[in-house]
């Protein structure tokens, strides 16, 4: 009887050790995914010449936007201002204080408008200006909504490389 209890105790200790190891692994995964890099599946028509319609897997890094090193021309992941549960991929066209010229309705006219991006905001636009819901609709967005910077494409393999 005594030995049986001893055995049970050792099994419990071992499983607790395994669980702790697993929890540590999950923590490491979380930290890597939020602070260093992670793969992301992006799809949709709004970035069309750069990213495919049917879906690309890209590696995005989460360091440079925390250091404020994101600039005009970078492709970034942004929490959509209209729906916080959605993450969208767009290109930064202007940082704070810069003036941006954009076509109001590119499919119909060449009428353009100039705006100055306010403090702490960025102007984002999709590469496919005909089918993109971006700053032209909802104006400049706060820098705090930027989640990460798209770094390179991983899949499909023939398009492998930095963006």
């Amino acid at each position, binding site marked *: 009887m005594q030995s049986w209890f001893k055995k049970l105790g050792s099994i419990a200790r071992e499983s607790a050790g395994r669980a702790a190891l697993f929890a540590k692994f999950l923590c490491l995964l*979380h*930290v890597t995914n939020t602070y260093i890099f992670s793969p992301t599946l992006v799809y949709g028509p709004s970035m069309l010449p750069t990213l495919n319609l049917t879906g690309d897997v890209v590696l995005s890094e989460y360091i440079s936007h925390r250091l404020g090193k994101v600039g005009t021309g970078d492709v970034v992941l942004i929490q959509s201002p209209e729906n*916080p549960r959605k993450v969208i991929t767009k290109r930064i066209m202007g940082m704070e204080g810069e003036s941006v010229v954009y076509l109001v309705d590119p499919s119909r006219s060449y009428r353009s408008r100039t705006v100055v991006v306010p403090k702490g905001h960025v102007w984002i636009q999709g590469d496919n200006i005909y089918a993109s819901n971006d700053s032209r609709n909802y104006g400049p967005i*706060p820098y705090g*909504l930027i989640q990460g910077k798209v770094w390179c494409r991983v899949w499909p393999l023939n398009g492998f490389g930095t963006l």
Partner: protein
Amino acid sequence: MVSPRFLWNVCKSSFTFGLVGLTISDRIASVVHVRGFSMSPTFNPHIINSMESFSDDHVLVEKCCLADYKFSHGDVVVFSSPSNYKEKNLKRIIAMSGDWINRPHSYDMVKIPEGHCWVEGDNPTNSMDSRSFGPIPLGLIRGRVTHIVWPPQRIGKIDRKLPQGGLVF
């Protein structure tokens, strides 16, 4: 003389501790130091003229609500300021998307756009909030304040409440 094995163990355990702490503060809860008097009756009720006061309120911020971004009127939230992403502000949600609200110093009503909310401090005379920068996207919210944890005589729960005066329609 410290053995390299001991040093290695210290490094390893502090690294693990950091990982676990970071995960908990990102996913579950963290403690935030409240500065300033913009939420005055609720936090920091007594005005003290020292800069870095030890008796400032420290509050518990829970992060589980960030999984689905469901907030309600009267919640106190932490969000990063729309004009400077490094700055965190602490205000109360007054109106959610779809509500109509009076802009201050004018008589026109504003509809809060989809995915946005209107935040205000409890101290209307001394607060930088939606009255100056407009509605903010819900994506800027970094957590919901649930309890005061420091100083000890003020430990308690934060209630959901709306200011008197009927700003919300």
